[in-house]
């Protein structure tokens, strides 16, 4: 269908919905025949003890199908409530459900801030009255939220990690056992928009990609949208990972410390003024351990990482909230060998944001965000007076504003803008002069440029009937450097067949302006490049169709099929040492990804967990690769099975297990060999001749992990002893296979990954 026609259809339907709402003036309440000019109830849902806002809590009007879910700020709004008595039922996972009786008069706008108490009996079979899906205006397609509690259980080598936890979801793959990069429905990690309190983070990884930079103690909410995401999100074409940081305990000071084998963490929080503060930090001590075992004759690299989160939140009156947040993560590796060579590698992620939330009224909610984010990596090497340097960074200054108008019980309108200024630099100096400064004039690969992106978006969520809800959105973006304007229409619907059975569908166009030059398994030299005059922005079209249901009490089951068509996608050209034109740094091609995912999840009770299966296929095509024939990329895994289970035995013990199975990664086999040399060489180099690009599969990857938590006290404070057994039967996944031609006999060598790793950690709360 013609894209322009789709744009106009979306605008037409949106305007019709708004006009229908305002022109009609009064509507018929489908349950009781009351008038639209009814009451509005709005407010925040918070934890009764910490006063932390709760995201995704549901507020339902008893006896009706009318309700709302709290947004990322913990805010909800329900309009068109009939005058008289209503009972609001408020529920949230892990908290006791509350019923609040309201006496509302015609046209009244009631502010209702609600506190929920955490369930007294841990993991009791609390029945959650509703989910986000019970807000008829809300359509969440391909959206997954993992309870933070479960993230803390899904540990790798004793460390809980947000990205690693997400890799236990079906359809979310990793390039290898040692990578935290997310390959979601065929999309590479750079195609996922990662937001922390609304700020984009560009390379959120530690230990060369092994862990993410997000300290789980500092995170309050994790939402992953695997496809079909709405118009408020832009700039990436595959998925969205939206993380919200903790605000902090508004009532009293508290803290948590943990000591593990790889790193230690400390988080502190407490009240200040009319709000709260939060500080969290983490540091590894690999450098301290290596310094104890290395010798002068056999030095070891000194490596460390740390990250730091901070946030302060203040209420400026009843209708305003201001928060300032910061985040910094650093990795540093230094090495000096006895022959005088020095090598330094450094990676740094930094972000700061100011967020102002303002309520214009009980039904108009707004958020304005100003953020700064920088990703930087660098290399310095010197030996015998010969030096080399690389300095690489991307800096992002963004101002964003969003207004949410809860226009009625069946209409929600969202509109906003986003303007960003980028600075990109890639500077290298391999001339040997280590002490010379880097500038864009030196070296053929040096980039030093700036760019701006301006975007606006609008979206209407319209509940046509008790069964059918529509979501129509449009996002427009202008890219200055490329001087191009793109439009991204987005559409979603939900049709409720029965109270616990619904069909969901989504379609949308997604443009991506930035592309990443990166090594898949080793996240260090990541370089972001803009779309310049030599290429067009990358683009994806998503089609999603699924069914969601609750087959049994406490269980949710989703089946979802997807198709994603990709154009102007990039594959890094190897050995490019000249040129800054994007066309010459990347191959440009097309791709498609399609598959089906099954996901059964239980989130409450003594037993929690999920079972997921994904059957997927990815196909890429580049004119210059594989003779122009389609091929499957390295991260294509036909079958993907994920099983996660956690069981609370009693007050002291909790045990869990996770199992993953994936079809083997693709690789390129070699069929023959010849020898080459260069003028004056007395030895040749063996060169192999490949078969089809990524034409074969390595053995399947599979792994079983076990964990146990022992609840106790330490120094009179609640504590947990965390016991982990990673890769229980020590299955050594193959990282990659290569053909060693250093001798006449070609050695086919597999580089294998992690064996069984036991670990223990202690965590104390105070």
């Amino acid at each position, binding site marked *: 269908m013609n894209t322009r026609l789709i744009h106009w259809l979306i605008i037409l339907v949106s305007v019709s919905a708004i006009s229908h709402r305002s022109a009609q003036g009064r509507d018929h309440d489908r349950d009781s025949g009351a008038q639209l000019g009814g009451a509005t109830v709005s407010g925040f849902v918070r934890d009764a003890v910490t006063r932390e806002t709760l995201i995704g809590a549901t507020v339902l009007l008893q006896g009706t199908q009318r309700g709302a879910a709290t947004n990322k700020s913990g805010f909800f709004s329900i309009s068109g409530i009939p005058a008289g008595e209503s009972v609001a039922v408020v529920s949230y996972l892990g908290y006791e459900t509350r019923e609040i009786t309201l006496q509302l008069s015609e046209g009244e706008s009631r502010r209702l801030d609600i506190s929920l108490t955490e369930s007294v009996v841990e993991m009791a079979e609390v029945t959650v009255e509703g989910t986000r899906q019970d807000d008829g205006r809300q359509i969440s397609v391909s959206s997954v939220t993992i309870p933070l509690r479960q993230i803390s259980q899904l540990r790798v080598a004793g460390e809980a990690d947000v990205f690693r936890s997400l890799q236990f979801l079906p359809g979310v793959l990793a390039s290898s056992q040692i990578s935290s990069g997310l390959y979601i429905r065929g999309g590479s990690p750079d195609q996922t928009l990662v937001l922390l309190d609304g700020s984009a983070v560009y390379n959120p990884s530690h230990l060369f990609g092994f862990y993410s930079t997000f300290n789980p103690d500092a995170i309050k909410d994790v939402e992953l949208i695997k496809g079909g995401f709405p118009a408020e999100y832009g700039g990436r074409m595959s998925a969205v990972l939206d993380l919200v940081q903790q605000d902090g305990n508004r009532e009293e000071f508290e803290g948590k410390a943990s000591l593990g084998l790889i790193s230690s963490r400390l988080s502190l929080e407490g009240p200040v003024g009319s709000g709260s503060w939060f500080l969290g930090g983490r540091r590894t001590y690999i450098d301290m351990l290596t310094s104890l075992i290395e010798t002068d004759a056999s030095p070891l690299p000194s490596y460390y990482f740390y990250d730091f989160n901070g946030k302060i939140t203040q209420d400026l009156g009843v209708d305003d909230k201001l928060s300032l947040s910061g985040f910094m993560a650093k990795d540093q590796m230094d090495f000096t060998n*006895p022959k005088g060579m020095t090598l330094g590698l450094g990676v740094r992620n930094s972000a700061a944001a100011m967020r102002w939330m303002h309520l214009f009224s009980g039904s108009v909610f707004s958020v304005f965000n100003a953020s700064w984010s920088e990703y930087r990596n660098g290399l310095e090497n010197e030996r015998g007076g*010969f030096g080399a340097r690389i300095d690489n960074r991307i800096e992002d200054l963004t101002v964003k504003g969003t207004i949410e108008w809860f226009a009625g019980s069946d209409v929600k309108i969202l509109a906003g803008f986003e303007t960003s200024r980028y600075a990109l630099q890639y500077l290298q100096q391999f001339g*040997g002069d280590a002490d010379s400064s880097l500038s864009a004039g030196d070296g053929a690969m040096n980039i030093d440029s700036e760019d701006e992106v301006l975007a606006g978006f609008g979206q209407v969520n319209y509940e046509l009937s008790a069964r059918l809800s529509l979501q129509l959105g449009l996002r427009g973006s202008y890219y200055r450097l490329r001087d191009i304007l793109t439009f991204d229409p987005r559409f979603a619907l939900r049709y409720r067949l029965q109270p616990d059975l619904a069909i969901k569908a989504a379609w949308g166009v997604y443009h991506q302006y930035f592309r990443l030059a990166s090594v898949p398994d080793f996240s260090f030299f990541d370089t972001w490049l803009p779309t310049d005059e030599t290429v067009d922005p990358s683009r994806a079209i998503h089609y999603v169709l699924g069914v969601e249901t609750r087959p049994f009490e406490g269980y949710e089951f989703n089946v979802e099929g997807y198709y994603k068509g990709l154009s102007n996608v990039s594959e890094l050209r190897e050995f490019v*040492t000249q040129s800054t034109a994007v066309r010459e740094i990347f191959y440009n091609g097309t791709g498609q990804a399609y598959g089906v995912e099954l996901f059964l999840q239980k989130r409450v009770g003594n037993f929690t967990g999920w079972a997921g299966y994904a059957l997927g296929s990815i196909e890429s095509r580049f004119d210059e690769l594989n003779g122009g024939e389609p091929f499957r990329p390295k991260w294509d895994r036909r079958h993907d099975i994920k099983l996660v289970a956690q069981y609370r035995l009693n007050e002291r013990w909790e045990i869990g297990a996770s199992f993953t199975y994936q079809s083997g990664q693709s690789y390129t086999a070699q069929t023959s060999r010849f020898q*080459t040399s260069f003028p*004056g060489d*007395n030895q040749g180099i063996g060169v192999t001749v490949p078969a089809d690009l990524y034409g074969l599969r390595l053995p399947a990857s599979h792994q079983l992990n076990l964990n146990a938590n022992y609840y106790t006290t330490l120094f009179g404070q609640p504590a947990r002893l965390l016991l982990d057994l990673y890769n229980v039967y020590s299955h050594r996944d193959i990282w990659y296979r290569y053909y060693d*031609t250093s001798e006449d006999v070609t050695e086919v060598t597999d580089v294998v990954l992690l064996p069984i790793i036991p670990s223990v950690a202690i965590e104390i709360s105070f």
Partner: protein
Amino acid sequence: MKKSRSLLLVLCTLVLAAGCEDAPPTEYVARPYVQGYLLVGERIENIVVAQSQPIDRPFDYSASIVRDASVSIEGGGVEMHLIYRDDPDGGGSYFCPDTTVRVAPETTYRLVVRMPGGEVLRAETTTPQSISWVLEPPSDLQYPRDTTKLESSDSLRMIWSPGNSAEYLLRVRAVDTVGYGRYLDPPSEESNARTNSRGEKRGTTYSVTQWVYAPLNRMRLGWTSFTWFGRNEITVFAPDYWFLEWFKSTQFSRISAEFDQRESNIDGGLGVFGSASILRKELFLQKNGR
């Protein structure tokens, strides 16, 4: 119920079986390989013609050489038919018998190889502009006494005219790995030795060359570029596109280099036909004090 369990078992088996490793390919087709580098000002020689061999058998370099191909090069209005000769290392190559012919700068040369089996391979290269020294390295160098306290030294800095290339290669070659004292004044019986940079070793033989990539027309070599004391030769190469791409695709991943058709200009086969302008400088590297 039994049927459901059987079906589930079959499905699981299929899933697991589908996840097994694929068997490696067994098909092999011998492919012709050509390697030729034309160096401005030098004779036309060392053109190698060979066949690839199966990867599951030990590689026999001598057996891979094709000794009866028809090789001709046309350039500068002259067509030359090359003839074969054996090399001391067990291999062999083709050369232009007219030793007065020298490779000219900024000239297009076309290579045609007719294999004994009938395949025809073609390639073309245009030689770069000549280059010259702006700052050449000295003739004598003293290897530092204490290599753990290496100081920045201008004696290893060199600059050359850019020509029409944007990237360069440097080669350090040990000219005489045996003799050392005979070049001193007064001469001695002292024999040569390796520096503490060992260089690559295959079997019992060390490599006598070290290659360095240079992104600019100036470079400061590191001491580790020298693997032998005594007589060494530094050569700057200003390569054409194909020489450079072939170098990057094979040298940057030496023990697991994989052929990439995009880095090869041989039409009908594997390999490279490239060219370069060169600058040579011979120097004597004195041993560090003991």
